[in-house]
């Protein structure tokens, strides 16, 4: 499909581009107004609503657009809604947090929309170059937002570390992309003549084998290239060998942005991973299932990364005393759980990832929101600042308990659905290694209960020095309740989630 016709399916991104500019202009216009914060928030909500409308009105379909650079399919729309939800929560949270000064709120919103645009592109990129460019867009904006509080030493340190790790990761990823281009002579992942098509085509596989003096050499180059590419993706989702930035960045960034960073770009990273692996190394069967093409052991690579991420994330979280760092390691562990669904390399596995991501947005943003509410009042983010929260701010404390149990995956809460589906998908795939992976996952959930429970113990069983109750802003209480309710009651009726995930991935083969 050529560029002009593709624009019809590019409305959400176009609206977002205008939104970035509009927020900058609005920032200039209302700079001296005393009602600046309210006006800017309304502006941001307006543009989010318009983006949502554009996303909703985009016709359903499954085909490449812009000559194969992007793919328009239900998966992309699914992720778009996920990103919109995360952005909406951030826009609602930011104005009342004390971490973003009101003078720079417009700038923050403009950058947030730029980040959202990059994530939209990540979710639909089907070309190696565009995958790289969209990841870079998201990364560059994230660096700036991490160091948003220019005067804070921690923020500057975090931003600098983020830039350095990010530079290395994207360099490695580019190297992987260049090897892939050398092997296949194209940057297209899906579609005619793309990497997937070439691997499926026996003659071109023979050509590959011959061009490199025998199958093993080509095979090795392919494995190396894919592992390098994984460095870029793993960096975005904070999976283990590429996770080093995340505790410092989570701690140094303004907390409302940390909340967004832990769900938005992570989900976008999974969108890239799912699209890349399933377009390049899997072939959809007429029945809707998938079969592997080529003999690259990618599920094994992902499985190993997953097991290490879970274990290392959970074990390191045990010794943390800063709650933001604790949640950072918990989010590394969650990247591990999510990767488990990808390692299953099946339709059910990907659908379980999608469902888990929805629930993850609900519970993780909620947990960070309580941290924001507490640090607003006590000025600290350590576990000791949470002491006596059960009497000081009962609703926030109860909400945090729900989010933490949900993150652990204890049955009455929503996190259980996600974990259950992921473990089920892995076990269903069968084989010794897959079952072992599931067992590691279950053991890790048990470990994670330990450090989540430490926080709960501090809230209810330990006494604070300052026992005065404090006020949580009404907006925060509203959002906390709105997030806690689905976390507690989703278990009774989660068919819509399953149906939605099934519509997003693994439906009928592309037309």
């Amino acid at each position, binding site marked *: 499909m050529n560029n*002009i016709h593709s624009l019809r399916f590019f409305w959400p991104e176009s609206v977002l*581009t205008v939104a970035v*500019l509009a927020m*900058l*202009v609005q*920032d*200039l216009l209302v*700079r001296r107004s005393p009602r600046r914060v309210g006006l800017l928030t309304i502006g941001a909500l307006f543009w989010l609503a318009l983006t949502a409308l554009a996303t909703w009105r985009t016709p359903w379909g499954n085909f490449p657009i812009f000559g194969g650079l992007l793919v328009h399919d239900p998966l992309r729309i699914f992720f778009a809604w996920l990103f919109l939800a995360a952005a909406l929560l951030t826009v609602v949270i930011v104005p009342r947090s004390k971490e973003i*000064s009101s*003078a720079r709120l417009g700038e923050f919103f403009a950058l947030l929309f730029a980040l959202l645009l990059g994530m939209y592109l990540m979710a639909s990129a089907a070309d190696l170059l565009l995958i790289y460019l969209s990841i870079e867009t998201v990364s560059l904006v994230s660096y700036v937002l991490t160091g948003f509080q220019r005067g804070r030493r921690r923020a500057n340190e975090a931003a600098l570390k983020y830039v350095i790790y990010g530079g290395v990761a994207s360099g490695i990823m580019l190297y992987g992309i260049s090897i892939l281009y050398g092997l296949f002579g194209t940057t297209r992942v899906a579609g005619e003549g793309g990497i997937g098509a070439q691997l499926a085509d026996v003659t071109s596989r023979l050509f590959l084998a*011959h*061009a*490199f*003096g025998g199958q093993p050499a080509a095979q090795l180059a392919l494995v190396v290239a894919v592992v390098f590419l994984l460095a870029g993706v793993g960096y975005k989702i904070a999976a283990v060998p590429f996770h080093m930035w995340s505790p410092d960045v989570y701690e140094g960034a303004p907390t409302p942005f940390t909340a967004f960073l832990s769900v938005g770009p992570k989900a976008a990273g999974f969108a890239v991973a799912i699209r890349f692996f399933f377009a390049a190394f899997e072939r959809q069967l007429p029945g809707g299932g998938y079969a592997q093409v080529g003999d690259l052991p990618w599920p094994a690579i992902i499985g190993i990364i997953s097991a290490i991420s879970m274990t290392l994330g959970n074990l390191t979280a045990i010794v943390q005393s800063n709650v933001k760092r604790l949640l950072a390691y918990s989010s590394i562990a969650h990247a591990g759980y999510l990767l488990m669904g990808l390692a299953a390399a099946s339709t059910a596995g990907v659908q379980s990832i999608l469902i888990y991501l929805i629930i993850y947005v609900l519970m993780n943003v909620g947990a960070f929101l309580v941290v924001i509410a507490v640090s607003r009042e006590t000025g600290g983010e350590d576990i000791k600042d949470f002491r006596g929260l059960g009497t000081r701010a009962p609703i926030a404390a109860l909400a945090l308990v729900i989010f933490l149990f949900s993150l652990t995956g204890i049955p009455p809460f929503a996190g259980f659905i996600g974990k259950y589906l992921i473990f089920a998908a892995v076990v269903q795939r069968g084989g010794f290694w897959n079952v072992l992976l599931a067992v590691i996952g279950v053991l890790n959930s048990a470990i994670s209960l330990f450090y989540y429970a430490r926080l709960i113990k501090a809230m209810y069983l330990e006494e604070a020095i300052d026992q005065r109750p404090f006020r949580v802003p009404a907006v925060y209480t509203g959002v906390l309740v709105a997030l806690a309710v689905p976390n507690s009651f989703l278990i009774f009726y989660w068919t819509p989630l399953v149906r939605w995930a099934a519509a997003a991935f693994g439906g009928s083969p592309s037309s």
Partner: protein
Amino acid sequence: MPFQFANVLIFSATAVLFVFGSLVAGRFLRPDAPNREKSMIYECGEKPIGQAWFNFNPRFYLIALVFVIFEVEIAFMFPVAAVYKSFIERGEGLLAFFEIALFVGILAVGLAYVWAMGDLEWVKGLKQDVLAQLREKQAAPPAEKKAA
């Protein structure tokens, strides 16, 4: 097949040898007669004043950043201008014009923002919030000073 890699090997070996070879050859072939004028740092023909190793004013960096953006803008617009006639011949003139206008428009918003935020001013005043912070500090001298 492995012999194809010999091309690459010879190519890289030649590249490395050429660089070092020409430097070494030059060392022995050229006349060696340094004087004060010659060993001075070349700065557009001017006599250098002082060392080059000092802190540059960060104002240069801000202006340079804005400058680079607009230089890239020109680099993107020239090719379009060069082939614009062929766009018109294909009946896509208006489209190309609109695209490049959009591009310039986006950059113009950026310029307006930078301008209004005072980043183009060479002499910078202190921002109001910084002034307020300074006043607070003067009102209450820091505790660690007393300790010292």
